[in-house]
């Protein structure tokens, strides 16, 4: 393996470097690196999963994509930490859609969704901004219950 000090901006090099950057980032936080790559694949303006989920101007389409991608990671992730993080981010996408767009992008029952959001809100390893969104989403669900509306379908 040779040391290099070259840092040119050739696009093919950038693409290769991007995939491998994911690999080296993964050495420090493997699960987050996988989630961040999925996010960049959805929209390159987002450099990581959290930036998409907490963006106040995120589109509903990007949130639907994020929900799907994180669901896949939850099912196929290599280890428990991958799958657990994916579950949190999956809930985060649903929460962001509720809070930012007033849309339910999940067919889960209120009870199931609320459990996932409570777990997300309580996870101290995650950024406060994302946990706040979960808290707001919980309030949205509870408010609809208090108003007697049925929100079990998306």
């Amino acid at each position: 393996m040779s040391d290099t000090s070259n840092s040119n901006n050739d696009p093919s090099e950038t693409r290769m470097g991007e995939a491998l950057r994911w690999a080296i980032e993964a050495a420090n936080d493997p699960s987050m690196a996988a989630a961040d790559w999925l996010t960049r694949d959805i929209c390159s303006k987002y450099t990581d999963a959290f930036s998409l989920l907490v963006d106040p101007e995120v589109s509903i389409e990007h949130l639907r994509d994020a929900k799907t991608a994180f669901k896949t990671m939850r099912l196929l992730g290599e280890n428990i930490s991958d799958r657990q993080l994916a579950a949190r981010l999956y809930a985060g996408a649903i929460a962001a859609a509720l809070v930012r767009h007033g849309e339910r992008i999940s067919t889960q029952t209120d009870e199931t969704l609320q459990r996932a959001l409570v777990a997300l809100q309580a996870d101290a390893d995650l950024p406060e901004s994302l946990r706040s969104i979960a808290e707001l989403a919980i309030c949205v669900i509870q408010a609809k219950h208090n108003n007697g509306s049925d929100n079990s379908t998306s």
Partner: protein
Amino acid sequence: MTNQIPQTDWSMIHDLSSEERARGKAMERLVRRYWPAIYAYIRRTGRDVHEASDLTQGFITTVILQRGLAQKAEKSRGKFRSLLLTSLRNYLRERHRYEARRKPRKANGEGAVFSGFDIDAAEGKIYDTPEKAFSYHWSAAMVRSVLNSVRATCLTDGFDLHWLVFDARVARPLLFGEKPTPIAELVERLDLSSPATASNMLVTIKRRFARALRAEIESTVDSEEDADVELAQLMKDLERK
């Protein structure tokens, strides 16, 4: 061909005999490690996130688990990467033709499967791109696994400083194009006794990395010759042009 993409059911592996289960668990390990390469390939063929997710799960369930790609890989061995990629291409063609039969294209183009995407035309034009996406993510996943393993053993064996030297002199320059941190700077920053000490530490971890990488590659191929070919391919993926 089923109407719906079946959900991944890893429990199928547990229904096998103990020997088959061992092979199945090994296959599950490989699939879980390299699913991003499968997903990346499918995305580069033009499918959106939702289609790519469904097809990734469908490929793993239908081809790898139900059709026994694990057993085929075990019997014929050869390079798992090549077998996986060939199977994936075939699966996508199958799905495309199945969807095309189910949803005939209307005269005005409505109802077209993957509207705007023609897999046969794509093979002539963007076929290289899905291959490269697969190759990047395959290599990245392998490097990820090996770096994780090496870093973990370094920490376990009390080689924390060794890892920091390797990271600053080799890993980051290789992957980010950064300039290697000068040895003198590392000696000062890490309070090492001499430049020779830093160099020896570096050699130690390079050897560990090389052994670990070789072992990982050998788990996916049948022969030493195939391992050599795979290693060359990996280094080609890693090298900057």
